């Protein structure tokens, strides 16, 4: 039972990651490969806030979201004007910078040793979120909140404007829309909600190190979004479920661990190629990304 709950918690974390990434990747067609960096910032801010400041649940989440959103805003306004491949390269550069900082700023992040013993967050002074059941319910509540927020955003005039940019940015300019501002807003919101995944991951696993937030992880998140499909709510959910469950299914085949890990990456790569070729809109997406 604990094993299943663990998988469900990881699925919830990844759904929040892919749903947040979808606002940038699927709604405005900006392929960000720096999502893991924002995920990592959310997790590290969480760890520091819970350990050093000992803040309760809500201020910790808010602070984690705020710091990540602020950084997202700064990266957004500097890179969002870049088109296509140049934007991908800018986010790639940012991803590498953040990973390097997490790995080398020993006095704050403890570098490659990581930060252990992250305490369980407390809400309202008496609810302590701990234990696998506690975290499952907590992650489910956060997931419902995130899905609600993104559902409203996607189905609002704001979401429609983002889809307009995705379809034809020049036409949006000619309709009097400040497309740079709209894209920066989408990017900042995406970063803020990515931090919620970071919060959940750090407080659930209780140990974080930079390898959880490297470039591979960023590509993994974007792959999950593209496999699931973009532009709606269902797609990113399906993508997250697919990428978290797939390696677990491989366990039942009985491959040795060293082969299974590589097989996982090969299968992800293969699945991505097949999806791009045969079903570019992903499992449940409404939009063909490429």
């Amino acid at each position, binding site marked *: 039972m604990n094993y299943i709950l663990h998988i469900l918690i990881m699925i919830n974390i990844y759904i929040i990651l892919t749903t947040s990434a979808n606002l940038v990747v699927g709604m405005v067609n900006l392929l960000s490969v720096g999502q893991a960096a924002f995920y990592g910032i959310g997790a590290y801010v969480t760890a520091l806030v819970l350990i050093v400041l000992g803040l309760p649940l809500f201020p910790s989440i808010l602070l984690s979201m705020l710091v990540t959103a602020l950084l997202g805003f700064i990266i957004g306004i500097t890179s969002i004007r870049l088109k296509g491949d140049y934007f991908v390269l800018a986010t790639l550069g940012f991803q590498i910078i953040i990973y390097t900082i997490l790995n080398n700023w020993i006095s704050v992040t403890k570098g490659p040793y990581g930060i252990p013993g992250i305490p369980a967050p407390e809400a309202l002074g008496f609810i302590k979120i701990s234990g696998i059941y506690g975290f499952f319910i907590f992650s489910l509540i956060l997931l419902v909140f995130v899905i609600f927020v993104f559902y409203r955003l996607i189905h609002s005039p704001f979401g429609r404007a983002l889809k307009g940019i995705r379809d034809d940015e*020049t036409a949006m300019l*000619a309709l009097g829309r400040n497309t740079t501002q709209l894209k920066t807003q989408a990017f900042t919101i995406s970063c803020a909600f990515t931090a919620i995944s970071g919060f959940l991951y750090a407080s659930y696993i209780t140990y974080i190190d930079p390898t959880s937030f490297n470039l591979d992880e960023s590509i993994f998140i974007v792959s999950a979004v593209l496999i699931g499909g973009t532009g709606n709510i269902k797609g990113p959910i399906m993508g997250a479920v697919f990428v978290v469950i797939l390696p677990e299914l491989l366990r039942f085949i009985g491959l040795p661990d060293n082969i299974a890990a590589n097989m996982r990456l090969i299968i992800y790569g293969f699945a991505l190629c097949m999806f791009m070729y045969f079903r570019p809109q992903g499992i449940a997406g409404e939009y063909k990304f490429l």
Partner: protein
Amino acid sequence: MKDVILHIRGVTKTYAQSIKVKGGHDGIENHTVLNKLDFSVEKNKVTALIGGNGSGKTTLFNIISGLTKGNEGYIEFVNGKTSILSEMAPYKIARLGIGRLFQDVHIFPELSIIENMLLADNVRLGEQPLSPFFLYSKVKAKEKVRLEKAEKIFCSLFQEDKGLLDRFTIKKNESAKSLSYGQQRILGLTMLLMADNKLLMLDEPASGVNPSLNEQIALIINKMVVEQGLTIFLIEHNMRFMAEVSDICAFLNKGRIEFIGTPKEVLENEQVKLSYLGA
């Protein structure tokens, strides 16, 4: 005195072109598309701009819209107050009430027909990220108003064409890419009415459209000017269509306006015949 909405003053645009110079070396040559162009667009009239391919018609439209920067000169838009367009970002120019129909189709193919119309509204309430949460009922009410406005526009424009009216109203939730090319052009034109524009710049509205839709477009343009009091500045190669819809016609050649007159005068002008219309 003429009531002018747009003054184009001394606009010059040059492009650098790479050429082969003596000895087979690469060199750069400046190609002048617009050469100190002066022109005015009168309010509540249909002004057509004609000229050969590469004469700079679309470049001029792009400079007015702010999508391309001119090298010299400036453009004034007069609507109550005077705005210098050359110094403004494209989206700010559009917000003054200058709508644009592009030469190629620029609609939102993945959005539905009605969503395309709603997106064209110039009142942007609900497009701020926090508004779906904190102004939910206001945004919902505004969406209803937008929907009514879109349907009213469809009804007034297509009342003579039941087929087109049904296509845009009964099937309004189908994606815009399901429309034919001509219908997409008409949707683009109709969207310009959602934004309460003052000046519409139409780049070849009749190109690639069958004769019956052409008639429909001519009718829509006429309604826009007569019923809504809009000003239209259009580029057209179809001389029959141009003569049917325009009040004034200007002939652009070698980067300057070489002749202005009524469509009839322009089409009968020897110089226009020689350099553009042919025998």
